[in-house]
C-alpha cells in the first residue's frame, strides 16, 4: 500500500538533509517522487554530480521531468520519474501500491538537460539575462513571454502578452530588467520585467523578422533587428526612436548579433544569400567585413575573446556551423555538419577559451571548443532546436537550448547531464501485438519511412525495413516530416504489419524473412500527391485499408492481403475524415466523420452501426469498447472526451473536459476494471468510463506522438507510447495484486 508520507516530510526532508550535509542520502527513486519538487529545485539548483554516478543519473532523470512533477499528484510523479529513470538507464522498482499503477518495462527515449521554462506544444525562443542578482531565462512562444529563474526553473511573474506571435526575445538594460520581444512582422515590444510596465510597442519597417539583439551603445541601450528588406533598425530602448539611421541593403536578414568590442559596439548580420556582413555601430553604421559563407545563413553570433580577437559564428541551411575571424573573414577550423538546418549558434567562454554551440532542425545541438569541433559533445533533443545561448548560472557557464517540444533546457557544456539518445528521428505511429509466449511486441513507423519491430530494450529495433521505396517527403523547412503509419496483428496465424507512407501501402509478413528483412506480401500505391491519410486495420484475421486511389476516385475499403475491394464505397469528400476501423458485434466498421456527424459503417455493406453521433469539428480520435454489455464509442478531440452509446448516439456521462491535444484514445480492461486511456500532448491519462473521474496519468518530459494499448488476459494492460523514442509500460491494478 502506498501511504503518502507526512506533508512535512514531503516539503522539508530535503531541507533538513541539506543542512545535515546528507542530501544525497534522501535522493533515491523510492523517495524522490514524493518530495516537493519546487522546494527540492531550490535546494538542488544546478548541483552537479560525479559523471556516471548513481546521483548523476538520478538527477539527470529528475531534471528532465521536474517541470511535470507536482505536489498534488505524487502517483503521477512516480510514473513520470520511473519512465525517465529507465530512459536514463537506471532500473526502477516495481511499486507495490493500491490503485492503478504504471511499471515501465523498457524505454528508448531522448533524455538529458534541465528543463527550465515550458510552453506545452509551442515552439519557444529563449535568451539569458540577469535580474536582481539571479540568472534568468526569458522564453517566448506564440504571444507569451515568460521569465524563469535559471537555477530552479521557477517562473517569475505571470507571462507577458505580446500583441503578435513572438519570433525572437532578448533581455538587457542596466538593471537587466528590460525585456524585448519581436514578431515576424516586426512588432517590437519592450517591458520592464520588475514593474511589468510596457515600455515600448512599435512596428519596425520590413517583414519576416527572425532575430533580435540588445546592446549598449554610447551609454544607452539599443534593440537591433532586421528582416526581409535588409534594412537594420537600431532603436533606443528608452524612447523607441532611431539610435542610428536605418542601414544595410542586402535583403533577407536571417540573423543579427551584437558584440561589445574594444572599438565599440559591433553588429553581424547573416543574410539569406549566404553572406555575413559586420558593422561598426559606434557613431554611425559603417560596414567592416563581408564574408561569403556560401549557403543561406540562418544564425550568427559575434564575440571578442582575449587572445583570439573577434570571432564570428555562423549557422547555415545546409547544416553547417562554423567559426570565422570576424576581422579578416578567414574561417577558423573546419565547419561542423548537422543532418538538418542549423537554426541557432552562440559563442561563449569556458575557462577563457571560446566555445561554440549550434542547434539544428534535426534536434541536435553540438557544443565544442570553437576551434576544436572534434572535441565537442552532442546534446540530443526531441525536436527541432530554435535557440542556443551561453549564460552564467550560479557561477557556472551553461548552455540554454529552446526546442520545438516547447521546452527550454539548460546544459553543462562540458559535462552534460545524463544525455542519451536511442532512436533516430521521431516515431509517429505505434501498435502493440501479442506474441505466442504471453508477451507483447511493438511495431512502429518513423519519419524516415521505416517500419520497425521491437521486442525489448536495446539501441536498435529487432527488425527495421524501409517502407518508403522511392517516395520521399517534399518538406517545408520547419515542418515535421510525416511518419509511416502502421497497423499490426495476426492474419492466418502470421504476424503482419500494414504500413502507409506517402501513399505507398505495404503489407509485410513479420514472421517471414527475406534477406534478413520481413517479406513484402503486397504493395498498393495511391496516386502520389493526391492521397488523403488512409485508415489501416489489422486484426481479427483480416488486414484492411481505406483510401482513395486518385483525386477523383471514391473512398474504397480493400483487403490488404488480396487487394479485393469490399462493398463499402464512399463518395470523395474533402471534408470527411477516415477515423479508423473498429470491431464490434463480430463485424468490422469504418469510422467516418464530416465535422458534424460521426458514423460507423459496415465495411462490407455500408450499413451504419447506429444513429450518427453529433460532433463539432474534427473528432480527433475515436475508439469503440464494450461497457456493461453495450457498445460505447469514445470520441476524443476539441478539448473533450465523450463516451456515447453506439445504439443511441447519446452521451453516457457528461463530456470530460480535457486539453485540446488529442494523440489517441483506447478502451482497456485492467484487472476487473474497465478504463479509457487518452494520449495528450505529453501525457497519457486513464479514466473511469462510468464516472468520468481521472484514475491515473503518466506525464512525459517532452511531447508524444502516438499511443497503442493491449489488454492481456492476465489483467495487465500494455501501453506503448511513441514520440522522440519509444516506451512500453504496464498498467496494472495494484489493489488486485495485494494478497
Amino acid at each position, binding site marked *: 500500500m502506498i501511504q*503518502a508520507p507526512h506533508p512535512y516530510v514531503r516539503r522539508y526532508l530535503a531541507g533538513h538533509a541539506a543542512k545535515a550535509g546528507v542530501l544525497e542520502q534522501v535522493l533515491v527513486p523510492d523517495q524522490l517522487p514524493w518530495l516537493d519538487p519546487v522546494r527540492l529545485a531550490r535546494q538542488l539548483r544546478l548541483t552537479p554530480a560525479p559523471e556516471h554516478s548513481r546521483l548523476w543519473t538520478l538527477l539527470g532523470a529528475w531534471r528532465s521531468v521536474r517541470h511535470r512533477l507536482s505536489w498534488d499528484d505524487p502517483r503521477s510523479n512516480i510514473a513520470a520519474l520511473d519512465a525517465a529513470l529507465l530512459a536514463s538507464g537506471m532500473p526502477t522498482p516495481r511499486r507495490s501500491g493500491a490503485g492503478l499503477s504504471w511499471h515501465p518495462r523498457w524505454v528508448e527515449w531522448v533524455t538529458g538537460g534541465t528543463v527550465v521554462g515550458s510552453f506545452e506544444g509551442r515552439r519557444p525562443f529563449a535568451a539569458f539575462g540577469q535580474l536582481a542578482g539571479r540568472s534568468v531565462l526569458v522564453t517566448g512562444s506564440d504571444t507569451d513571454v515568460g521569465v524563469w529563474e535559471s537555477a530552479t526553473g521557477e517562473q517569475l511573474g505571470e507571462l507577458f502578452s505580446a500583441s503578435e506571435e513572438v519570433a525572437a526575445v532578448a533581455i538587457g538594460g542596466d538593471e537587466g530588467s528590460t525585456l524585448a520581444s519581436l514578431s515576424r512582422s516586426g512588432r517590437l515590444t519592450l517591458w520592464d520585467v520588475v514593474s511589468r510596465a510596457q515600455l515600448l510597442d512599435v512596428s519596425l519597417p520590413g517583414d519576416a523578422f527572425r532575430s533580435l539583439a540588445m546592446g549598449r551603445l554610447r551609454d544607452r541601450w539599443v534593440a537591433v533587428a532586421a528582416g526581409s528588406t535588409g534594412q537594420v533598425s537600431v532603436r533606443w530602448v528608452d524612447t523607441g526612436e532611431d539610435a542610428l539611421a536605418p542601414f544595410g541593403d542586402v535583403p533577407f536578414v536571417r540573423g543579427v548579433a551584437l558584440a561589445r568590442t574594444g572599438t565599440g559596439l559591433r553588429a553581424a548580420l547573416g543574410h539569406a544569400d549566404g553572406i555575413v556582413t559586420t558593422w561598426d555601430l559606434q557613431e554611425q553604421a559603417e560596414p567592416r567585413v563581408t564574408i561569403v559563407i556560401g549557403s543561406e545563413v540562418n544564425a550568427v553570433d559575434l564575440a571578442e575573446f582575449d587572445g583570439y580577437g573577434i570571432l564570428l559564428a555562423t549557422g547555415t541551411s545546409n547544416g553547417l556551423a562554423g567559426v570565422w575571424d570576424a576581422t579578416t573573414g578567414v574561417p577558423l577550423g573546419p565547419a561542423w555538419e548537422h543532418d538538418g538546418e542549423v537554426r541557432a549558434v552562440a559563442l561563449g567562454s569556458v575557462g577563457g577559451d571560446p566555445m561554440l554551440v549550434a542547434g539544428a532542425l534535426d534536434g541536435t545541438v553540438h557544443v565544442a571548443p570553437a576551434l576544436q569541433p572534434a572535441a565537442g559533445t552532442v546534446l540530443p533533443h526531441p525536436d527541432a532546436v530554435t535557440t542556443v545561448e551561453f549564460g552564467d548560472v550560479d557561477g557556472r557557464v551553461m548552455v540554454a537550448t529552446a526546442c520545438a517540444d516547447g521546452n527550454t533546457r539548460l546544459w553543462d557544456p562540458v559535462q552534460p547531464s545524463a544525455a542519451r539518445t536511442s532512436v533516430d528521428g521521431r516515431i509517429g505511429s505505434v501498435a502493440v501485438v501479442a506474441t505466442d509466449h504471453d508477451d507483447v511486441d511493438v511495431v512502429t513507423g518513423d519519419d524516415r519511412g521505416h517500419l520497425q519491430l521491437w521486442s525489448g530494450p536495446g539501441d536498435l529495433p529487432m527488425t527495421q525495413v524501409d517502407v518508403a521505396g522511392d517516395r520521399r517527403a517534399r518538406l517545408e523547412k520547419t515542418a515535421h516530416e510525416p511518419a509511416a503509419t502502421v497497423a499490426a496483428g495476426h492474419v492466418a496465424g502470421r504476424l503482419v504489419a500494414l504500413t502507409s507512407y506517402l501513399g505507398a501501402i505495404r503489407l509485410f509478413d513479420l514472421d517471414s524473412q527475406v534477406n534478413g528483412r520481413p517479406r513484402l506480401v503486397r504493395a498498393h500505391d495511391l496516386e502520389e500527391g493526391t492521397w488523403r491519410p488512409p485508415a489501416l486495420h489489422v486484426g481479427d484475421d483480416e488486414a484492411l485499408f481505406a483510401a482513395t486511389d486518385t483525386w477523383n476516385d471514391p473512398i474504397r475499403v480493400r483487403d490488404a492481403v488480396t487487394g479485393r475491394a469490399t462493398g463499402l464505397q464512399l463518395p470523395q469528400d474533402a471534408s470527411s475524415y477516415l477515423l479508423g476501423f473498429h470491431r464490434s458485434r463480430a463485424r468490422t466498421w469504418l469510422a467516418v466523420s464530416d465535422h458534424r456527424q460521426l458514423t460507423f459503417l459496415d465495411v462490407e455493406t455500408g450499413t451504419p452501426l447506429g444513429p450518427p453521433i453529433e460532433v463539432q469539428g474534427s473528432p480527433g480520435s475515436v475508439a469503440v469498447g464494450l461497457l456493461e454489455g453495450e457498445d460505447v464509442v469514445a470520441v476524443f478531440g476539441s478539448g473533450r472526451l465523450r463516451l456515447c452509446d453506439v445504439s443511441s448516439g447519446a452521451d453516457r456521462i457528461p463530456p470530460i473536459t480535457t486539453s485540446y491535444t488529442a494523440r489517441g484514445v483506447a478502451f482497456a480492461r485492467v484487472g476487473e476494471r474497465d478504463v479509457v486511456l487518452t494520449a495528450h500532448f505529453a501525457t497519457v491519462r486513464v479514466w473511469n468510463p462510468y464516472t468520468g473521474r481521472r484514475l491515473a496519468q503518466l506525464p512525459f518530459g517532452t511531447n508524444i506522438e502516438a499511443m497503442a494499448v493491449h489488454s492481456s488476459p492476465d489483467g495487465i494492460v500494455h501501453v506503448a507510447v511513441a514520440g522522440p523514442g519509444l516506451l512500453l509500460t504496464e498498467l496494472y491494478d495494484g489493489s488486485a495484486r495485494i494478497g
Partner: protein
Amino acid sequence: MSAGDDVLRRHLIAIATDTFAADATFPPLDVASELRTVADWLTDESLGDRRFTDEGYEVLARSPRYDQIRQLLTGDPGFTSGDAVVLYVTGHGHKDQGVHWVVLRDSDPSRLSHNSLGTAELIRWLAAYRDLTHVLIIIDLCQAGDVADEIPAALQRDLPEGWFVLCTASAGVDAGLGAFSGVLESVIADLRSGTHRESNDQEPYLRPSYFVEELQRRLTEKHRQKLVSINQPYGPSVCLPNPRYDATRLEAVATNPARRDLALSQSALDTHWLHRAPVTFDQGSVFTGRRRLMTRLIDVATGPADTLVVAGRAGCGKSAALARLVTCSDAAFRQQYAHVLAVAEPVPPADSVDVAVLATGKTPDQIAQQIADGLGAGEPQGDGLTGWITAIWQALGARDGPATLVIDGLDEASDPTAVTLTLLERLTSQKYGWLRLLIGVRSSGSGATTDQRGRELADLVVDALGARRLQADADEFWEEEDLAGYAAQLLAHGEQPSPEQSRLAARIAGRSGRSYLLTGLVARHLAEPSADSVSDALLREVVETGVRDLVLQDLESSIPDPAMRDKALRLLRTAALSFGRGIPWRDLWARAATAIDGAVPVDQDDVARLLNQRASGYLIRDMEDGGVVYRLFHDELKSALTEGRPGDVDETSAHLAITRTLMAHAGWEWTLR
C-alpha cells in the same frame, strides 16, 4: 493553509422520514433526536467558520418525496470543489430483490421500487460531481451495509480521497433506532470535554481513522452493530469538525477574519494591556509608544493609494507596529477593548485595514487566495494565480475607494521574490490606483545608505513595487523612551514604575541595541533584584549573556524540574530548527525532539505540558497542510535556540537527527551511501 481553507460552503443534508403510509410494515420512528444529535455537532455556532448549515435542504429532513430529493441533489447549482457535504440518511431501510431502498413516506412495501429511493443512487448522484472532494455520507438505516454491494466496484474503488461512506449496520442486519446517534453523541461529548486521550483543542478537524474506530468500538460494545466504512480519508477531514478546537488559544484576539492573520495574540494582549500575570513574552507586540511610527503607518493606511515597505532589523518592533495597526482598526476589537484604546494613542480609524496577511511559509497563490477571501472576491476568475489576481482586481474595482492591505513577514514567505514579482507587483500596477499596501520586511541595519548594505529583499521590493520605504529602526522613527517604557512595564510587573525602575529601564534600553526581544529578556531577568541594586557591571553582564542564555535562565526559573526543563528545551530547539510554518504538533514534534539529543524520550504528554507552561509564550501556533504546527515567535529567538545549549549536539547533527526521524516516519530506509 489548513485542510478547510479551500471550502467555501458546508452543507448538512439530512434525509429523514418519520411516518409512513404503510405504518403496519414501517412503524413511525422518532428520527428527530437523531437529527438533533448530528445537527448539534455540525451546526454548532461555536464551530465558527467550520460550521455546516442545512440551509436549502431543510425539506429533506421532513419526510421528503423522491422527486424532491432528486431535484435538490442533482439540480442546479450542484456542488463544486468549494463545497463540503455531509449527507445523513435515517429512517427505515429495506433490501428488496437485491436492492437496498430508503423507505419514503409513500413507499409501498410490495413495490418498493415505485416510491422509494435507491440508497446507492444517492451516492451515485453525489459522485457525479467530479470536483466535489469533501464528502461524508452516513447511511443510518437497517441493512445499510447492503449498500456496499450495490455501489459499482468502479465507483467504490475510485471515490476521491476526501470521501467516506459510513453504513451503520452490516448487510442484512437491522440498525437500532438511535443506536448510531447515541454513540455519535457520546463520542462528540467526550471529544468536547477532553476526556478522551485523542481529544485536543489544537486541530480544527478530526482524523477519520480515530473517529471511525471510536464509533465502531462503541457501536459494537453497546448495540452489537457493526459499522461498515467505505473509503476513508487519511488526513483530517473537513467533514469532521473538532468540537473541542479552541481557535482563540494562543491565537489572535477576536477580529474580523480578514485581519486575523496579523491580529495581536490574546496572550500578548493580556500581557501588555491588561497587565495580567504571569508575564509571558511579548510575542512581538508592543502596544504603547512608537507614536511617530504609528502615525506614519496610520497616514499610509488611510491616505491615497500607496505602497509602503516597512523594513527593519529583527526585533525592532515593525511586526508589532503592523499588528497594532491591524488590530486597533478592527471594529470588534475596538468594541471589546475600548478602555485599552484610550491609552494606546495614536489609534487608527475603525476599519482602516481591510485585509491582513502573514506571509510566513506561504506561496504566492496562498497569499492571493487569502487576499481575495478577505476582500470577499469570491471564486477565482480563471486558473492559478492569475485567476485569484483577476478576482482581487474585480473586488478592488467594485469598491468606492482604495482598500488597505497589510502583509507582514514577506521575507519568510515560501519564495519572497516570487511573491513580489508574481503577485504584489501586479496588485500595485500603476494603472490600478485601488490599493494601499503596507509590507513588513526584515532588513539588515537601520542605516539609510542602501549601498553599504548591498541589495537585499527590501530593496528589491521597493524597486519592484515603486514603493516608499520606512525603516522602523531608523532614527526618524526610533523613540528610545518607548523601549525604556516597555522595560519599565516589565520591571514593575505592570504596576506604576518607581523612579528607580524607570532609571534602570532607561539603562537597559540604552544597551539593548534597539531590540525589544533583548530588552524584554533583560528586564525580566532584572525584575527581581531591586532596581537600584543593579550595577553597570551586572547590567552589562546580563545584556552580554545574550538572548539564548537569557531564555535558558528564564526556563530555569519557570520549569524547576531539570528533566522537564531538558525536554522543554529540546522541544523548543526542534521548533527552532523546523522549516516553513513550523514543526507538526501531532506527528513529528516529540519524535524529532527525542532524536535530537538526550537519553530520555520526549512524548506527546511532554508537548502538552510545554504548551501549558508560560514558556509556550515563545511559540506561535499555525496551520500547514491541515495540521497544527509550532515555531518560535521571533527570528532572533529562533537563531538563538537553533544553536542549542553548550554541550548539545551541533546544528548539523541536530538536522541529521531530524532527517532520520522524518525518514523513519515515512517508512523509508536510511542507507548510508
